[in-house]
């Protein structure tokens, strides 16, 4: 069954919340509805689908990789060139700790940023159904539905005061 997409543009956030409620009431699955806005609203403000994510796992993996690199680097260089300086032993743990710490944190931060992109589903080449007014205060309701239900969705959006409805 072919699907189509609609984007209803609203000025008033309350109307968006009402339209979302009505769309869900009309049997549109919440996973097929999305909201586009120019600034963040508190989670659940529109009764939208609350996204699951695993962002917190990324820094852990990154930290582990960074720590391993730091350990290999510091231990490897001292073993490769075993020169005693200042009476400090080969494989001096205190200075190794400092470099391993920095590498751990760098790994964690790099992976967090990767995680942010992955969990945000970015980058995206094509903006698809979108409107530039969204970054100027308009709020868009994006509906992905079977072609034959597009009319029902459009009616709900219209009845709740959509300024404009764009279609794919």
């Amino acid at each position: 069954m072919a699907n189509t997409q609609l984007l209803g543009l609203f000025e008033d956030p309350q109307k968006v919340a009402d339209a979302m409620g009505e769309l869900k009431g009309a049997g549109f699955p919440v996973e097929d509805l999305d909201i586009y806005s120019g600034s963040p609203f508190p989670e659940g403000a529109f009764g939208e689908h609350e996204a699951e994510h695993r962002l917190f796992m990324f820094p852990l993996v990154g930290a582990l990789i960074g720590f391993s690199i730091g350990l290999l680097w510091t231990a490897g260089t001292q073993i490769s060139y075993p020169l005693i300086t200042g009476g400090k032993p080969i494989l001096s743990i205190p200075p190794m700790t400092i470099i391993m710490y920095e590498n751990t944190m760098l790994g964690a931060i790099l992976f967090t940023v990767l995680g942010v992109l992955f969990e945000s589903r970015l980058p995206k080449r094509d903006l698809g159904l979108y409107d530039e007014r969204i970054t100027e205060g308009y709020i868009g309701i994006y509906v992905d539905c079977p072609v034959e239900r597009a009319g029902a969705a459009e009616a709900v959006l219209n009845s709740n005061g959509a300024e404009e409805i764009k279609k794919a």
Partner: protein
Amino acid sequence: MYYRRTLTEAQINQQLLGTVLTTPLWWIVLVSLLGIVVAGAVGAVGWMINQGLGVTGLRQPVFWGFFITNFIFWVGISHAGVMISAILRLSQAEWRRPMVRAAETMTVFALMASLAMPLVHAGRPWRIFYWVFPYDWARGIWPDVRSPLVWDPIAITTYLTSSMLFVYTALIPDLAIIRDRSTGWRRSVYGALSLGWHGNPRQWKIQGFAGILLSALILPVFVSVHSIVSWDFSVSLVPSWHVTIFAPYFVIGAVHSGVSAVVTLMIIMRKLYKLENFIWEEHIDALARLLMVVALAWMFLFWLDLVFALWLREEQEITVWMLRMFEPPWSWLFFLFFMFSFVIPVPLWMFRRVRRSFTWMLWTSLLVNFGMFLERFLIIVPALMRKGPQTFTYATYRPSPVEFTIIFGTIALVCFLLLIFSKFFPLIPLWEEKEGQLLIDHVKVGNVYVPALVKEH
């Protein structure tokens, strides 16, 4: 605090994207002037490389002078970004919104300036390579990880990379706003940089978590960077440097100078970019309160450093401190440092009228940074001075015009880079401002409306 000057999203876009979408004349003039100063400093560096370090005031035994002072100074300034941004994000302080981006950006450019200093200081900058990277594979010679001089580039590179990613991650929604307001090649560039941002709840949720998570991760890095810089000193046996308190003392000192630099930056930004609707007296007041706490903590650590330096009654240790505090010209510099970084500004900040005056806060914050530059200078130079074997006088250090030119060049460089940045990216995060407007409310108590915020629960 939050119930006045309500702006629409379109108004916020228009007011904060002013210099991005148009180019005012003052911007061209300022960038040109600063560019000339930077070019002068680059010329001075070239001259120094050509002539050798003899053109500086560095002489046996004082081989750390203005360049290393300036290195520490800029690392200190760079702490402002994380201090303001990460701590205020984590504590969800509402007044953070207009200052996070500018502070984070200043971190990046200040770090670049600081990173340039050891390169310049080396005299033959390309030889830095030998310290940091494995250079003789055949003989298996590697950099010595036990040397604190190897820790510095690792820590600063980590911090610089993290800070740039921190700035970029929070910039993505604003890049999408500029994308939607521009045309032609600019639209393509901003489109690519904004990675196809839509602003759906998932993206906003991750953006919110990213701010908190990156703040939490970058905070320990920020503490470690200045600590590692301090260990350059304290793991040596030089009198007055070999003290355990240097790490937190340097970090708090850095926060003191860094937050002062943010105050200076905010006030100048407000004037230049006409940001009266975004940067208010209340913001500067909040920063001044923070500065008072930081300054007191810094003074506590300074006092501990002094008391425990005298504690062991070791002659060399006491000699350095006496030299710093009581022998001219160091005593004059010490007096100025102490007055500028604590005695004058902190009591003044106790007055609400001073805290809410842009003029007073501009000058007191500049004073602090002048004082903190002197503080770093006084930590370094008197400790390295020795009495000559037959002369009974101290070998001294006097910075040369070449060094002064390079120091002023770094100040110009940071301002220059900030101006260039502001031409392409907004210095105040638009989406954070919009979010702030959305959460403003009030509670009526009796006849009074008390400003309030909507809290997610």
